[in-house]
């Protein structure tokens, strides 16, 4: 109800202001005989901006303070013995008054003082709302009139409107910086709090991960060694790259060098479907299909492979990364100048010799960049490892055994009841910081290499 009124008021104000600016501008044009600096639409927009800004400000203030004000009003209307209550009892009294005031009523008898307070509250709410609306409408109208009176043929309304637009655009661009700043600041702040419990040396060089539970009380109370998690992360990521790199690269080579346009146009989108599938689906796939398959394969070969292991998670993650590698390498291979390829073929080299001796070496920096980006993806991937890596944070060197990774541990430490004061939760931010730093280095290096590579052939 109130929202509708507010939205309606703003819309009416907007329409009136725009109309007022427009018609003033239109009426000025013939009187002067000359030309206006700006078109009527800009005058309208300018008046609308000036009229809406103060009205919005007042409504924002009202929205921010109305709850506190009505609460204070209720408390002041309650008899002293009720108002002196503390905590939940006071909240309950206030809630009852609000419910009676809303007309829904409360169960059971109502005390006379409650009814009185509710009546007073209803009046207060109506009054403050009416005041806020009236104030917003009034200032809006005044600002509208003032802005309208500014309109002269020489007013540079377009420039002013464009300045406002440019400010809005800059504000939008800054969101990206604020996000990065927010990530770095929040990770650093919480990680520093974590390091007051556990020394960074123990964290970064510890070989045992046994954080204990936050419910057993505060204090460190566990061992927070990063190395087992880091090892698990690297192992899963390496397996993923072992799967993805050959398949992705060969797919890209075949599609760009051998395949007919028809084959290319059918195969490429199908392979790229793999990139659009949510990671949770890959996780489920790993858990119910790939894991049991690898385990039975291991049994047949006499190897001990668990259903949830680094191998399972890595294989499926590799499948996920195939399209990433293949489309990036495809772009890069196609950027190699045609002259290199034609020259090599002209000298009698076979196609595969051209690819291996000429095209790949020329495209190598770009492919390395793509590889680094893919590694960064693999390191940061979460759902596949949560479901399929087995979550066992020990330093093990057999890929058939379950492992745990940095991302899995972040999820484990921060789901359920999170208490932001315990090291068990805070460690997630230290892990996040490590992860962010690793991916940042990989991304920046990859972007730098790819950019250098592009420049080389442009």
């Amino acid at each position, binding site marked *: 109800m109130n929202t509708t009124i507010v939205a309606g008021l703003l819309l009416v104000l907007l329409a009136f202001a725009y109309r007022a600016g427009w018609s003033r501008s239109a009426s000025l044009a013939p009187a002067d005989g000359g030309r206006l600096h700006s078109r009527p639409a800009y005058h309208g927009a300018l008046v609308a901006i000036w009229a809406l800004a103060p009205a919005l400000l007042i409504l924002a203030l009202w929205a921010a303070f109305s709850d506190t004000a009505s609460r204070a009003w209720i408390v002041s209307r309650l008899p002293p013995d009720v108002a002196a209550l503390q905590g939940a009892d006071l909240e309950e009294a206030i809630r009852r008054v609000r419910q009676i005031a809303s*007309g829904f009523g409360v169960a059971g008898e109502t005390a006379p003082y409650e009814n009185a307070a509710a009546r007073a509250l209803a009046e207060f709410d109506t009054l403050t709302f009416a005041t806020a609306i009236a104030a917003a409408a009034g200032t809006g109208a005044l600002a509208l009139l003032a802005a309208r009176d500014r309109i002269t043929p020489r007013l540079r309304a377009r420039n002013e409107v464009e300045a406002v637009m440019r400010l809005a655009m800059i504000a939008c661009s800054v969101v990206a910086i604020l*996000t990065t700043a927010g990530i770095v600041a929040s990770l650093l702040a919480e990680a520093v709090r974590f390091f007051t419990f556990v020394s960074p040396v123990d964290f970064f060089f510890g070989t045992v991960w046994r954080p204990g539970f936050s419910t057993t009380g505060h204090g460190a109370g566990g061992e927070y060694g990063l190395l087992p998690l880091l090892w698990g992360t690297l192992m899963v990521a390496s397996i993923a790259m072992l799967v993805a790199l050959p398949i*992705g690269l060969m797919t890209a080579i075949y599609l760009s060098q*051998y395949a007919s346009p028809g084959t290319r146009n059918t195969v490429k989108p199908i392979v790229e479907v793999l990139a659009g599938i949510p990671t949770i689906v890959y996780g*489920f796939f790993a858990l119910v299909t790939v894991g049991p398959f690898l385990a039975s394969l291991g049994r047949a070969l006499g190897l001990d492979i668990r259903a949830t292991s680094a191998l399972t998670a890595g294989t499926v993650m590799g499948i996920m990364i195939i399209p990433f590698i293949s489309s990036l390498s495809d772009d890069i291979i196609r950027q190699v100048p045609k002259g290199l390829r034609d020259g090599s073929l002209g000298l009698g080299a076979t196609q595969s010799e051209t690819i291996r001796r000429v095209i790949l070496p020329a495209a190598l920096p770009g492919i390395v960049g793509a590889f680094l980006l893919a590694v960064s993806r693999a390191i940061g991937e*979460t759902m596949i490892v949560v479901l399929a890596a087995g979550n066992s944070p020990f330093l093990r060197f057999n890929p058939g055994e379950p492992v745990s990774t940095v991302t899995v541990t972040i999820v484990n430490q921060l789901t359920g009841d999170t208490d932001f004061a315990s090291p068990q939760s805070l460690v997630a931010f230290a892990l996040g910081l490590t992860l962010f730093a690793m991916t940042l280095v990989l991304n920046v290096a990859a972007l730098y290499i790819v950019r250098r590579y592009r420049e080389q052939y442009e």
Partner: protein
Amino acid sequence: MTSEQRLALIRAGLSARHARERRFRVYGLAAIAAALGFVAILFGMILARGLPAFTQATLSLDVAFDPAIVKVEDKPQPRQGQSPADHRQELLAWERKVTMLNWNRIVENAVRAAAPDTAADARQVLSIVETNARFQLRDMFVADPSLAGRTVRVKMLASANADNWLKGNIDRALPDAQQQLAAPARALADTLRENGAISFDFARHLFTNTDSRSAPASAGLAGAFVGSLYMMLVVIVLAVPIGVMSAVYLEEFAPKNRFTDLIEVNINNLAAVPSIVFGLLGAAVFINYFRLPLSAPLVGGLVLTLMTLPTIIIATRSALRAVPPSLRQAALGLGASRTQTVFHHVLPVTYPGILTATIIGVAQALGETAPLLLIGMNAFVAQVPATPLDQSTALPVQIYLWQGNENRNFFEARTSAAIIVLIGLMLTLNAIAILLRTRLEKRA
């Protein structure tokens, strides 16, 4: 060496080189076959497991609302001078009495009427009907108290265990101790299936019900779906304007200096930051600092917005870059300001590109799970969220929750069905994007 000899040398090596060439080609074909094979296996496995879950064993029974069991006073009506709260309390008291009636007995009688010569005892009979059947009958009675004494045909879900048994998801040869249902109950289920009282109906409740722990066979995706919908709305409302505006600024207005360089590097890097880091940001800033509610689609939407922004910015920028400079020069030459040039002439040409980028970004956000786990969206929620500030889950999180359910042989199919719904949604979004793009491009 004469040219003859040189030729002979080359010819001698030729067959080996050609063999190498053929082998190389085979590697390429093998790689493509592997990639396509993975796509086929993935979809095949999900369809094979998920499609059966779209139909579910459903009992159609003649339920007699026996007046000897349904004994309760008349439903209270609002009286003159009674506050709505008081009336509601009276109504609740009456409903509590209705709930206390022996609805299980009515269910059991209905089943026995359909299979008179069963050997199953009361518990075994009830074990093949979903536990919420009694609430279903109660709700029917609450809505229409005149049902007392009448017999009506009611469709009730069979229990998850009965569904498993009838679909063959559990090995029929297993000994009794390993079966989920007792032997008489299994025989009863088979009898009912044979005489047509149990049929496999389309599982409508998968789309209309919310998650449920006590009645797993009736668990549905409605709550998760609405939660995802709210998040996508937040993403569209926030990410599209902010992303497009910032792309326009960076591409068309920004001077080339250290500051805009910084923004550039930033955006490129943000696009490659692991999604879970955005979840940490959400947990630290939105939940811990701003004290926004846990599990709320609004917070999820904000986190996903920050994640989607780089995608939209980068795609919009490349769309802007593809606009021929002659367009700008023509507009500027005719006296348009730079803002006018961009907003009246350049930006409209890029609408197909921006639209595609938006839909791709939204589809990506729709499938994201990890950051949502960190802001508490993995809570069990049995309601459809009414506002973006209510507790809720999301479709991918629901998949995560269901795959962890202990009734594995029932929930594996359920999870696959949910995955089919999610992927179906994403494919629809992408199809819409392609369709709109081709239509818009044709017009331009």
